[in-house]
């Protein structure tokens, strides 16, 4: 590479880090139908938003509003009907599974195991995309996996069997595996689903810290309005396949809007942290 072009590249990188948009969802739509001849069963209307490194984006909405579909589109598992999703300038759906796994980590609702595995074996799976197809883990892989476990506060779980740890511990190990992928983008689909309140707060707190430390861009689908308000930088509010509004929690958490979306009487007030707080209003 010549000096001039490397200088140009450095300038480009400097420019990017200043105004960097890591994830760019551009006018993305999708339609799902069981039978191509019939009208689609579900459609996602054109949705756009952007996220920077270190940002947490929460996708909120009632059931069947298209949250998980949007997440699958971002992960590249589904191809959008129109529009495109860029991760550092690359279309996520066009990447090979290997390259995609090096850049995007997905934490799903349930992770089932057919045969018993220890936590460290599970976390090492995250290194799969970084090696050749037939390989043995290197020293580096082991160090990265250990760090990942330590980062989620699960270093002591390393030698435990995955089917013998609690739901909260399991979720942390699953998160550690995602970190071992060393991704740019971390996607989570209802990660707090089966967790008690302490484990929920703990998980989101960990996510907040990781996003800041490792400059991950985090997109999380959740039903937990208050946790999203507390931890998200941006909220994407969805309803029946439509993205209603995008913005910081304070601009989204308005009583009329949330009542209309969730079809239930709610109260929205300001919490002690300065973030909005939602509570259910018992009907008189």
């Amino acid at each position: 590479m010549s000096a001039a072009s490397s200088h140009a590249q450095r300038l480009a990188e400097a420019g990017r880090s200043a105004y960097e948009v890591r994830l760019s969802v551009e006018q993305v739509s999708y339609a799902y139908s069981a039978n191509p001849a019939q009208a689609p069963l579900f459609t996602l209307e054109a949705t756009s938003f952007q996220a920077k490194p270190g940002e947490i984006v929460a996708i909120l909405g009632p059931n069947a509003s298209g949250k998980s579909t949007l997440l699958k589109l971002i992960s590249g598992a589904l191809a959008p009907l129109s529009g495109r999703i860029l991760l550092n300038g690359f279309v996520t759906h066009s990447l090979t599974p290997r390259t995609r796994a090096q850049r995007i980590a997905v934490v799903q609702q349930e992770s089932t195991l057919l045969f018993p595995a220890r936590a460290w074996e599970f976390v090492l799976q995250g290194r799969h995309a970084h090696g050749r197809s037939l390989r043995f883990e290197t020293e580096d892989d082991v160090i990265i996996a250990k760090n990942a476990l330590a980062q989620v506060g699960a270093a002591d779980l390393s030698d435990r069997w995955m089917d013998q740890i609690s739901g909260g511990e399991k979720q942390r190990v699953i998160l550690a595996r995602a970190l071992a992928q060393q991704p740019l983008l971390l996607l989570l689909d209802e990660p707090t689903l089966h967790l008690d309140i302490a484990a929920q707060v703990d998980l989101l707190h960990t996510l907040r810290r990781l996003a800041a430390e490792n400059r991950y861009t985090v997109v999380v689908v959740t039903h937990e309005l208050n946790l999203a308000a507390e931890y998200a930088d941006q909220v994407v509010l969805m309803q029946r396949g439509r993205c209603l509004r995008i913005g910081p929690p304070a601009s989204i958490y308005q009583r009329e809007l949330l009542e209309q979306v969730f079809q239930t009487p709610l109260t929205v007030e300001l919490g002690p942290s300065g973030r909005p707080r939602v509570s259910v209003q018992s009907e008189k």
Partner: protein
Amino acid sequence: MRPLTLRRLFLQCFILLLILFVVVIIALKFGAVPVSLYALGRDMLNFILGQSSQVSSDYGFIVWNIRWPRILLGIIVGASLAVAGTSFQALLRNPLADPYVLGVSSGAALGSILALIVEPHLTMAPALAALLTPVGAFLGAAATIAAVYFLGRREGQIDSNTLLLGGVITASFLSAIIMFLMSTLSGNLRGLAYWLMGDLSTSLQKSVYWFLGIGFLVAAAAIYTTASDLNLLLAGEKEAMHLGVDVPRVRLVVYIAASLLTGLAVSVSGAIGYVGLIVPHVMRLIFGSDHRTLLPTAALGGAIAVVFADTLARTVVAPNELAVGAVTAVVGAPLFIYLLRRRLA
């Protein structure tokens, strides 16, 4: 953390190789005609030194022309079935998958029989004609696993119980067709009944052993290239994809190679059941469920199991013989029930 190293893998395989060696010696020694270990050792030494003429003639024929080819066949068939079973378990995400239980062996058997029926009506070189049965068996195996896979899918997901039921039904349906063919056709096809239960006593041409051996190595190597992908595939296809596995490619490679292994094994030995089920489970208990270890250890374990079972089949009712498939079924069926109950619990 103790990730797998090449050294540990070699050590594990070496131990199993030693056990296989011992089992082979036992299989050479025991039978309707007993042979002393001393005579065996002397013969082997002479054989290795290239002095075949020194091999004593009184029992030499029995040991080297009857028992040894049969043991060799047992090794290849056992290794093939165990690797195929391991692969089907990962591919279908079902710990109870096995070529026999899924009806794939029956499909391969039907394929072989159809090839036998068609063979006299074709004019082709004898060398090619000898390959007709294995090819028929492969096609039968591939078609059956495709059908069972299709039957086992509900709403786009593989459903374990539906899959097993689909396999059992397919197996009985194919067996009925086989019975029908056997009863309508006269002559030597009736002798197939014994072969169908799993039998290693068929004498084969030397070229067939080469064909089997190379076929096994190619198919097993193809599956082994996907070993770490299979580890992730066990967690589900979506999850494997998110971790960087090219799922359609892995599925295709394993599907073709495992069908080939089943087809090869069945075309020479009939349907020896449960080897593909029990052996991977035992190896998982001993060495863990990492496919990089599991595939080679299962191959060796399968060879040990079949050679040992065949030795029992030859000796327990000597001078008569049992079908080796009967021995593996006596051990395998109760174990299958145990695994099924434990899974449902």
